[in-house]
């Protein structure tokens, strides 16, 4: 239908003869509705589309869902598989490593002509004159040797990943040999490719102030046995590309990306299903209370008062202890149940209020007068009119559910290991946060971005769906 909006009359000389500026015909009826009529949902969608923040959040939420559902199809790494020689590795792509032989049996270097435990000398112990390597160092083992020090009854081996700047900055003591005639040490502790500075300090009761330092550079390597797990025909000396870990690995050598995707399933499953369940329960009970009125309403509302007075997280913890999760269970169902039992009251009050308000409104009375059945009233009028408000409350309860899951898992009361969830991954990561920040940061960022997206989406939905609650801005 073509429609011309009525324009005020203007001087033709000023506006020329452009058709837009011709006087409107008198016949255009003033009553004709000039825009197509929109349903409530079409209107809401239009409003939401205009809200850039909300649209972006909708995109993020969809991306997250896609990541959980489709991600594992593309990133086919087992979240439980461990690579024990690549623990807490930073994000890496296309790491290539030389296949190396398992080093031969370690034979300690001793000097029979040197005293094992001499008496403590008068003067301070000297610095070993030289430090060397027994054989080629690799990430499997570093074997050090050094010249003996007169009067020493043992040596302490320090390791650091930074060049020492004098005494006291030698790093951590990785080992100690007892006996002045024992002159070598094998370090196999948690080696990874990179530079190491080893320092040998002589000792007899007291440690000497200073030691001798040597820099050791380790190339990326993989033992033959591990390489053969990757490719059966791997041979020593050949360069192999290792599986990449775009987000690094965790403290057990598991791929962080795969675990984040598996964790997303748990966190989003709980974060979305729990609010759905409790909103559904609440709306059902609250709607019923509002519709029935009288004593039923009174009793139900007293019950909600009581449940609302319970400290939420305290009882979440308590219920978790009770419903608990025996061995082999993930602890997801107890968490869902406790959340529903403690959280249905909010939506119940909301639905009750809405129903009470709508019940007395004119259009319901009109419908009733026209002979509508209770079912018709409920499904045609009451429910659609409350749906918007309830949808908004649902969107806002998703972040709170995700928060709750993260909080509980973080204090060790949530999902049971080895089931990953973002909260439990944060809990694992925080203990090593200062040394390996990526283990904590990635799950933390995922939680924050998800909660942020749902919060903004909730704001947008509220502005779009609920004309009474539009935010002031």
């Amino acid at each position, binding site marked *: 239908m073509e429609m011309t909006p009525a324009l005020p009359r203007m001087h033709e000389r000023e506006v020329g003869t452009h058709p837009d500026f011709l006087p409107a015909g008198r016949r255009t009826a003033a009553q004709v509705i000039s825009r197509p009529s929109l349903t409530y949902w079409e209107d809401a969608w239009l409003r939401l589309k205009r809200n850039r923040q909300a649209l972006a959040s909708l995109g993020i939420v969809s991306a997250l869902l896609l990541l959980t559902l489709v991600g594992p199809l593309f990133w086919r790494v087992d979240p439980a598989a461990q690579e024990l020689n690549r623990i807490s590795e930073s994000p890496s792509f296309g790491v290539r490593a030389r296949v190396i032989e398992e080093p031969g049996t370690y034979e300690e270097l001793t000097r029979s002509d040197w005293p094992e435990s001499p008496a403590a000398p008068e003067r301070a112990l000297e610095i070993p004159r030289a430090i060397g390597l027994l054989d080629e160092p690799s990430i499997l083992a570093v074997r050090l040797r050094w010249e003996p020090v007169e009067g020493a009854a043992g040596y302490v081996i320090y390791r650091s990943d930074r060049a020492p700047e004098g005494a006291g900055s030698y790093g951590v003591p990785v080992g100690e040999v007892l006996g002045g005639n024992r002159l070598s040490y094998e370090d196999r502790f948690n080696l990874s490719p990179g530079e190491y500075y080893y320092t040998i300090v002589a000792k007899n009761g007291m440690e000497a102030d200073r030691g001798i330092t040597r820099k050791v550079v380790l190339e990326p390597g993989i033992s033959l046995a591990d390489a053969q797990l990757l490719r059966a025909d791997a041979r020593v000396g050949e360069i192999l590309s290792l599986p990449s870990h775009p987000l690094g690995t965790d403290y057990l050598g598991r791929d962080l990306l795969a675990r984040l995707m598996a964790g997303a399933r748990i966190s989003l499953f709980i974060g979305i299903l729990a609010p759905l369940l409790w909103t559904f329960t609440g709306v059902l009970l609250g709607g019923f209370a509002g519709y029935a009125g009288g004593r039923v309403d009174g009793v139900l509302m007293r019950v909600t008062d009581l449940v609302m*007075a319970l400290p939420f997280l305290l009882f979440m913890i308590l219920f978790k202890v009770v419903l608990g999760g025996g061995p082999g269970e993930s602890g997801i169902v107890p968490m869902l149940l406790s959340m529903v039992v403690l959280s249905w009251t909010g939506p119940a009050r909301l639905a009750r209020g809405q129903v009470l308000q709508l019940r007395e409104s004119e259009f319901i009375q009109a419908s009733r007068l026209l002979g509508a059945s209770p079912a018709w009233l409920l499904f045609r009028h009451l429910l659609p009119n409350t749906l918007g408000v309830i949808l908004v409350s649902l969107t806002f309860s998703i972040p709170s559910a995700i928060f709750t899951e993260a909080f509980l898992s973080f204090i060790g009361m949530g999902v049971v290991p080895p089931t990953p969830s973002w909260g439990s991954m944060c809990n694992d990561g925080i203990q090593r946060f200062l040394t390996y920040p990526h283990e904590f940061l990635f799950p933390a960022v995922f939680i924050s971005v998800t909660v942020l997206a749902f919060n903004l989406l909730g704001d947008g939905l509220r502005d779009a769906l609920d004309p009474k609650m539009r935010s002031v801005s």
Partner: protein
Amino acid sequence: MASYILKRVLWGLLTVYFIATATFVAMHSVPGDPIMGAKAMSPEIRANLERRYGLDQPLGVQYGIFLANMARGDFGISYTQQNRSVNDIIREHFPVSALLGILAVVVATAGGILFGSITALYRNKRPDRLIMLGVILGISVPGFVFAALGQFGLTELNALSGREVLPVGGWGTFSHMVLPALVLGLGTMAFFTRLMRSSLLEIVSQDFVRTARAKGLSPVRIFFSHQLRNAILPVITILGPAIATITTGGFVVESVFAIPGLGRYFVQAVQQLDYTVIMGLTVFYGAFLVFMVIAVDIVYGLVDPRISLGKET
């Protein structure tokens, strides 16, 4: 007024009774029993232990004893720590948590009012946008992330400046409290800021503000004695729930910063399944939170003359 307070207190007592009963029922339906985890023991020792903790009585009697003890304020003896009563634990560790909580509430309220006022005064200008971005972050980032980041930042700061600007963990002096209180109050502060902003914006267009302006009052005077005072009221209403949030948030912050507070103790007790401590602390925390909310509501009634207590509900 008096009858309103009485009614609220009675209702609060009923709630606490409900909490106690729910806790009792919950803890007694946990599979296994509290002394199961201990070392292998002869039946005589077991019987002795059961007698000591009253576990040989029928459940109904245990419930009665439990309620009577609770009413007297006796929360029982810990199962995992020899000869330590729950009351001792509360007496020793609650002051720490309370101090931390009060500081966090102060931080949250002061910061919320300050930042909320700034956003409202600079509505839709750069300070407003910037602060509101912070608010969105503050609401969306879990408390333990702030705790970890705060600790990390402090470690770096201490390393950079070559001395201890603030301690990274532990408890004792005021300098130990600064970062934990800040971290604990941050989420609530963001929430308060948002609330304060919308409440101030609502008040700007009210008649009494226009009247004040028409009278020729200075903008400063209008802001402080007309707008601010009225805008603070909604913040006071949600102070009760905010205290609950901060209290439970303390569980995490106390664990991260190694603060010997009651929250860390509670988490530990839950992990060790120390039944009496869990029951005692749940009831204690429950009662504390219920009466905090009541107290805040009463104060709200006193502060806002438009609300006459007793007529509502």
